[in-house]
């Protein structure tokens, strides 16, 4: 089992979600986050003083997947989340030790 964390542009989120649904991935957790990599922010002016707002809004998706689905999920996200500009985001993959469904206490890939 792998955990896939993707930080993407908020404007691309709907396309990514729909595309993941199409390849059979239904479970996901979404958080609205702020951050930046190398992307510059924008300048605001308040009472004549300029300052840079460099924490930009992004969407973070967290999905735990069976190993077999990981590659397809990554490809799908890459295809739909990409705009080609700096600020598109990143995908991180990590191993998950176990998953348990709370309702009926299923374990392992059955719980996904």
């Amino acid at each position, binding site marked *: 089992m792998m955990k896939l964390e993707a930080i993407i542009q908020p404007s691309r989120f709907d396309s990514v979600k729909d595309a993941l649904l199409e390849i059979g991935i239904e479970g996901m957790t979404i958080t609205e986050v702020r951050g930046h990599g190398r992307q510059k922010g924008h300048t*605001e*002016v*308040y*009472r*004549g*003083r300029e300052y840079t*707002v460099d924490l930009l809004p992004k969407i973070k998706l967290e999905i735990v997947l069976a190993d077999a689905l990981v590659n397809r999920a990554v490809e799908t996200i890459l295809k739909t989340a990409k705009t080609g500009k700096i600020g598109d985001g990143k995908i991180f993959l990590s191993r998950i030790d176990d998953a348990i469904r709370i309702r009926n206490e299923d374990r392992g890939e059955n719980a996904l």
Partner: protein
Amino acid sequence: MKRLGVLCCCLLFLSLLPVPRLHAQQTPAAGTASQETPKAITERLNQLDQKVAQAQSSADNAWMLVSAALVLMMTGPGLALFYGGLVRHKNILAIMMQSFALMALITVLWALVGYSLAFGGDGPVIGNFAHAFLRGVGADPNPDYAGTIPQTTFMVYQLMFAIITPALITGATAERMKFSGTVLFMTLWFFVVYAPMAHMVWGKGGLLNASLGGKFPTLDFAGGTVVHITSGVSALVCALYMGKRVGYPKQPMPPHNLVLSFIGACLLWVGWFGFNAGSALASNSLASSAFVATHFGAAAAALSWSLAEWMKNGRASALGAISGSVAGLVAITPAAGFVGPMPALVIGFVAGIVCFLMVTRFKAIFGYDDSLDAFGVHGAGGTIGALLTGVFARAIYNPIYGAENGVNRPTGGLDGHWIQVGYQLVGVAFAWLFAVVGTIVILKVVDVVTGVRVTQDQEVEGLDITQHGEEAYNLES
């Protein structure tokens, strides 16, 4: 075409019908006139006079009560929202609470002794206790102040001014003043600064009273000196005394909700019609003139501030536009009932530019932390407005100095009475003096009794939680 023809026929028919009399007979029937004794006629004329006076009083009173409500609305929610939106979200309740607390506190002080100290007696600097507990204040007009409305109305109208004036100061102390300190400060400030200033400019016998023969007659229609200069300058003194907020100026502290500020500013603009036009104390052409001047001043200032910002930053901001309108309203406040519509535009235009520079350049150069620009807008705007009032005042709008041999005495520069600018300077100087000295003394006292500034930890955590135990936005619940 056919329908048009039918319509014309109907109108023609209706126009030929006899019209019932909708107004009462104004001429007595021919038969009675010759039988009335001179005494009866005099009696009837007296009654007619009374009824006319009553009608005038009703009209004036209706307008004045509405004006009083409008001015209260300027504090709550006008100012509360305007300031509230400009602070960080952890401090919004605190600043709103300060305005609201004043609505309650000043009302009680005014009722007990405030009105009497401001408008009682005929001393040069302060009133007396003749009207303490509102003794003698009832349905009868006070002929010195507003001869056609119940004194109760006049009293409650003036109360609303007394409420909003200290509330303006909270703009400079925002995000770092203790609530207990605020309450004590405002109570003392009301007695030491507001009441004397109100009495000197508007009270009978006041040194600066233009309409009641003061020694240095200052033209201040609705409170440029009494309200804006006193509060604005006191705000500056407070800001300097308390020091800068933690993180200022490096850390950006933009408004957390400009939508609230926008709503507040619009409420202020509309409410200001009560503030300025209501200062005519009657429903007459002077009120109309003041209403128009107020509106024009606001509009011109919003434009000029936006223009200045556009030229400096390349864009006009919403915050700039609303700040500009407030600056214009402040500047036109002393002038509203003395100047014409065109000078009102000029005063507004100038105020927008001057206050913009005060808030962006002057503040940055001297580095003080006037959090919400109470001094930059009210102190500076009020000063500029008061001086320009001396320039543009004309007796044709308000012959405040009465008439001599049937000719109105000149009021301001445009009438050739340029010495008025000198008198305005005196009034402005008094306002600055009372504000500076009074505020320094009061701050020292408050610091000893309750403390003025919150601790650094409290400031970082936020005033809502630390001073009031509340959070404004519980979005998860």
